[in-house]
């Protein structure tokens, strides 16, 4: 009885050790799960990008929704990316690429049709 009791404790410890070991092994072998990509919405209202500044990460999506009557664009100041024309009431989505892998999305941008409309996307690394 006593012995059995001791054996039960030993078994519990063994199971606990196995669980911890398995967890450690998984941690070593299994790559860190990527952070969930976020979906950012930027509205175009009364000839302005709202919000004007947005922090994004590689893998995120950015959707511009044009609430104005007239068409707009979101066009990189350096010319490396462009939503092209977004009609009044329409929306366009782009995926943020990783700058380390040649992704170019980010930085200052403007409306090609209305150059006084300006805003910025700041790309930061994915959190691990």
């Amino acid at each position: 009885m006593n012995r059995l009791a001791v054996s039960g404790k030993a078994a519990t410890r063994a199971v606990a050790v196995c669980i911890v070991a398995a967890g450690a092994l998984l941690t070593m072998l299994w790559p860190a799960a990527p952070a969930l990509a976020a979906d950012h919405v930027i509205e175009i209202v009364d000839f302005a990008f709202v919000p004007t500044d947005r922090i994004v990460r590689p893998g995120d999506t950015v959707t511009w929704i044009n609430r104005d009557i007239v068409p707009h664009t979101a066009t990189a100041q350096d010319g490396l990316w462009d939503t092209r024309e977004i009609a009044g009431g329409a929306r366009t989505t782009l995926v943020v690429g990783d700058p380390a892998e040649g992704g170019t999305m980010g930085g200052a941008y403007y409306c090609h049709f209305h150059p006084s409309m300006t805003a910025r996307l700041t790309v930061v690394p994915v959190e691990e």
Partner: protein
Amino acid sequence: MKIRTMLLAAAVVAPVAAGCDTVNAASPEDLNDVEMAHVAYTADNIDIRYAHLALAISANPTVRDFARTMIRDHSAVNEQALALLQKLGVDPQDNFLSRDLLAGSEEIIDELTQLRGDAFDRRYAENELAYHRAVNGLVENAFIPNIENAEVKTLFEAGLNIFKNHEKHAEMMVEAVQ
């Protein structure tokens, strides 16, 4: 051309001259909603004509980009305006101010068609700035305070916001083509 712009500006500021005897049925603020809509529609189409002329004559990328934007934006506003009038079951109504604007635009088009190169670009840019300033003043000071229908008023307010942006854009173009 300048005379036409001054005429329009005079029409805009005349009602402000308190006690003057120019306030009558032919004053801009006395127009009814569908007459104001006709003026706005006419003003949009005039600027679209200027823009097509610019695309036909100018090789300057700044001027051509601006002209394309004018065609795109004024066409979009007109489309919205016509849809609203259709919804309300009314037609735009011709009036003295629409006719005056059209007559003025003919003079400007005659002048612009005789210009080429930098001379055209400068004149087109100057006219766009003056034209938007004049029409914006008209819409803001004479039309919007006197529009009766709420939906028409909302559309005019949206249009004014667009055309004020055009005015700023025209200022940039004027500087760029100097």
